């Protein structure tokens, strides 16, 4: 009897998980479906079966070259992630293994910067970018994306590092390892799943960032977010083209997420069960 209940529970849980997953994925699925409709079909109302036309894709490609935007997205998301890790690994190490009285406060303060609406600092940031010649530059935007994601990266790494027993690092020190050796040869290999998932999550966040990437770029550094936003039209039908542009923009990150889902899930649930 108990066994039957367990199986039943399992079935219900699985079904519930599928329903939730489908609900979460549905907007993306519908975007993909709409991209294969004609503009007339797209605005007519809800329909799950498209006519299968690919005219939106050809129009989108003809109107603006996808590859340039794609390349910028790759450079910005990978660049900002690498930069963030270079700063966050030592920062998280010091907070995890040599905490002071104020460590918690610093962590909270870092997180609190994420609570501020971005638009509140648009003008100061814009002026700094203007005066330093960083408007529409990949370097400027890489730094910007690194800065806005840094609190999350530090927090995630701090949580992973706290799971690593300090005694192992002490043992390394006893064996004469220098600080850098300790971080590079002892800590980092043990924290690889955590660092990998932090990296993946940060790439996704940077890839999807649409406020700063649209406002601080014009042509040279514009990534896929700018590519998408160029297809909305005040006069004229555009849902199918916009969906095609969105599908093209999310495809790479969706594929990357699919292949690295094991690492992502492992990293995100790391330390969740004790």
């Amino acid at each position, binding site marked *: 009897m108990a066994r039957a209940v367990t199986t039943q529970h399992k079935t219900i849980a699985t079904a519930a998980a599928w329903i939730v997953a489908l609900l979460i994925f549905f907007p993306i699925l519908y975007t993909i479906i709409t991209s294969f409709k004609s503009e007339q079909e797209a605005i007519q109302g809800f329909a799950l079966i498209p006519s299968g036309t690919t005219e939106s894709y050809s129009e989108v490609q003809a109107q603006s070259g996808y590859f340039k935007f794609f390349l910028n997205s790759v450079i910005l998301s990978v660049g900002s992630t690498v930069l963030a890790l270079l700063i966050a690994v030592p920062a998280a190490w010091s907070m995890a293994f040599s905490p002071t009285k104020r460590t918690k406060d610093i962590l909270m303060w870092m997180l609190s910067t994420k609570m501020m609406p971005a638009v509140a600092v648009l003008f100061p940031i814009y002026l700094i970018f203007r005066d330093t010649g960083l408007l529409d530059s990949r370097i400027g935007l890489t730094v910007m994306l690194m800065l806005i994601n840094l609190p999350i990266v530090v927090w995630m790494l701090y949580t992973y590092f706290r799971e690593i027993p300090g005694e192992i690092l002490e043992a390394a020190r006893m064996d004469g390892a220098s600080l850098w050796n300790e971080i590079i040869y002892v800590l980092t290999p043990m924290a690889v799943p955590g660092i990998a998932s932090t990296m993946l999550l940060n790439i996704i966040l940077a890839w999807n960032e649409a406020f700063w990437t649209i406002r601080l770029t*014009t042509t040279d550094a514009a990534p896929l977010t700018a590519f998408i936003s160029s297809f909305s039209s005040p006069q004229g039908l555009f849902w199918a083209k916009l969906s095609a542009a969105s599908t093209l923009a999310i495809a790479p990150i969706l594929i990357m997420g699919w292949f690295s889902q094991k690492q992502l899930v492992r990293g995100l649930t790391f330390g969740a069960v004790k």
Partner: protein
Amino acid sequence: MKLRTLTLGLLSASALALAAHAESITIATVNNGDMVRMQKLTDDFTKANPDIQLNWVTLEENVLRERVTTDIATKGGQYDVMTIGTYEVPIWAKQSWLLPLDKLGDDYDVKDIIPAIAGGLSVDGKLYAAPFYGESSFVMYRKDLMEKAGLKMPDAPTWDFIKQAADKMTDRANGVNGVCLRGKAGWGENMAFLTAMSNSFGARWFDENWKPQFDQPEWKNTLQFYVDLMKADGPEGASSNGFNENLALFQQGKCGMWIDATVAASFVSDPKASKVADKVGYALAPDTGLGKRGNWLWAWSLAVPAGTKKADAAEKFVSWATSKHYAELVASKEGWANVPPGTRTSLYNNPEYQKAAPFAKMTLDSINAADPTHPTVKPVPYVGVQFVAIPEFQGLGTTVGQLFSAALAGQSSVDDALKQAQDAATAAMTEGGYIK
């Protein structure tokens, strides 16, 4: 081998030198059909001006507005040419954010620009933006349904006639709504339509002393008429319909009449997209006999921001894109029907254009019937037909638009919506220092 290497090296060096010499200008624009077409035709410009390279930034209308405002207010210099409308030009020109266009060239023929449009883009007699395409609004109607209803649309209908025709054309069983009008909240959406409509009912946003006028009977008449008309003869969910939604409804044959931008005529009469392409008639926007019609005036225009370092090249481009030559170029490549409308008188005198665009005369008459400097029956302290050209209007217009959209959806009464609009406008005007 050595000679070949040397030649290649020299060639690359000269190519690099040429590229370094070429000046590149950045043009910010919206994703409208005419703008997209222009981007495809720029070879003509770059061939004649090999030293100027063009970079395009296409953005969603609201994002574009926000981005160019940020850039121009901080003198960021990101853009050399901006696509802006008749709302921004008078405000920005007064702030000295735009350069006057006085080097458009000898053969540009500024006087050929339709006077109503030129008036909306000039401050103190100086042109601050060149119109790329202009539009007013008018009635598009189904000739077959009008005939079936036993009525004949006059060239200049009244609102009462529109109501009568809408009542007769409505056939909900067959999915036909007598009239489709904008209901989606926004200063450029339902408020563009309602502000223009209110002009024909004798209403105005503010009196001569900037006192809001939503507590006056003219506004009550406007809004009550609109809500009653839409409830009886409008489509379901009209409060979320904007230009694009109504366009789709009309093209599918679900509207007897649609009062909206003249630029829509080319969409509804396109047999590839519209099921009713051969059945559309056009008439002037309605009135109530008070001397003003419910049509607006808008022109997407190209302007050169004061922060640019490449003013000459930018103005050269503006001149090319808004010239008679450009109209001829579009006509030769894509036919006269695709020439950007509403900017030059010469286009409307062109017999080939008249033939290709059956809505040409009505478009010109509609544009000429709008006067942005005297938009209302009673005097007002502002410029603008379907907007009030003050910086506060974007925010206030959208707030009032939300209130009126809620009244249309039945979430509030007409009286409540007007009262709240009056309060919101009074607060905004007091905060802005217009009234004390």
